[in-house]
Each structure stands twice: as C-alpha cells, then as structure tokens.
C-alpha cells in the first residue's frame, strides 16, 4: 500500500516558468514532509521540508504548500532553471519515531527546457 504517491511520472516546463510538483499521502499521522532532488548517478539531496502544523514553507525559489484536509502537498519552483532538471522525490516522516524513518513517493522527473 503506497502511503506517499506522486502520480505524475514526468513534467516538462519552459525555463523561467513555474514548475509545480504534486504529492498525495494517505496517513494523517505524518509529522513532516520533505522534498529531495536527485541527479543521475548521484544520491538524493535534501531540498526543503514542512512541518504538518504549517501550510507553507519558502526557501528562495522553492516553496512547499501543505493542504492537510486534502492530504496533499506541492513543490513550486519559480522561476524554473535548466539546472533544476532532475528527479524529485516527496517523502513523509513520523515525528514520534526516533529513527526518522522516511516513506518516499515514486518520484517525478522534471525537465526544464531552455
């Protein structure tokens, strides 16, 4: 049973426009949500996170929005740059667990065209 889902395998946007990556989850007990970016032949790198008690977190060009009633979060990249082309993974975390275990979605491949 997939607790974290990214239903769009790929997304293509023009440089300078907004990229919106979506993620849905099923478990209302998650405490944190994270986004990771992965380039080919490299490990995922942490991008941005949001606590379940917030609805928005911003870091430069990256903003994550959380809609708890819909169990949905999204990552907005504005403006998109060709260097943003990568696979983006959404992940959820239980805060009560000391291990910080993450549950990942399937990933969305973003292509930003020059």
């Amino acid at each position, binding site marked *: 049973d997939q607790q974290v889902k990214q239903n769009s395998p790929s997304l293509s946007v023009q440089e300078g426009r907004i990229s919106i990556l979506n993620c849905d989850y099923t478990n209302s007990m998650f405490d944190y949500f994270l986004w990771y970016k992965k380039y080919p032949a490299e*490990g995922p790198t942490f991008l941005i996170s949001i606590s379940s008690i917030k609805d928005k977190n911003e870091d430069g060009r990256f903003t994550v929005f959380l809609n708890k009633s819909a169990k949905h979060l999204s990552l907005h990249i504005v403006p998109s740059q060709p260097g943003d082309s990568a696979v983006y993974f959404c992940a959820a975390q239980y805060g009560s667990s000391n291990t910080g275990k993450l549950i990942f979605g399937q990933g969305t491949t973003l292509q930003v065209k020059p």
Partner: protein
Amino acid sequence: DVKVTQSSRYLVKRTGEKVFLECVQDMDHENMFWYRQDPGLGLRLIYFSYDVKMKEKGDIPEGYSVSREKKERFSLILESASTNQTSMYLCASSLPWTGYNQPQHFGDGTRLSIL
C-alpha cells in the same frame, strides 16, 4: 559537510553469490539506512539502524541482512544474490529525531547487477 561514502559505484555479481555493500559516514550520525531505488517505485527502505548493533527491518527486508559493528559503518548483505535484486542501492544517515526534522544525507549509490 556530511559525507556518506558507498564503497562501489558499480558492481556485477553472479546469482547465488554472497554480496556485501559497504557504507561509511563521517558525521557521527546515530541513524543509518539502506534503500533500493527502482523505476516507478521510488526509494524503498530495506533496513535501518539507530545505534551500533541495533537494526530494524524496513519495508522490503527479504533476501537481505545488515551489520553495524561501528557507528560510522553500515553494511548491506545479500545472502544469496538473485536477479530480482538488480537495482540501485542507496545508503543514508541522519541524526536522531529531536522534535525537529532531521534530513537524511545520501551516498551516491551502488548500481548492482546480478547476472
């Protein structure tokens, strides 16, 4: 800067072999994790460890075991490799949960092919 190092970038083994994947982190992190990444399935947790000699099964532990004899090193063992274990394997480490999100830091992965 956190450094997670996986011993091999590419590995080719034969069916039935015992395979060892090694991971070392240099930030004194308590938590360490092993994932596999497959197309369309994302990252799936195999095993994790929250202290030396402590381990817990993740979502897909079958066919795997782990060893953590020292804090900085976490090994993944394929007891008898099979072709369905051909995958990208990723190791990660993190601090323990302190009430604030502690991101996991990943190595660059080992691309394992079982022939």
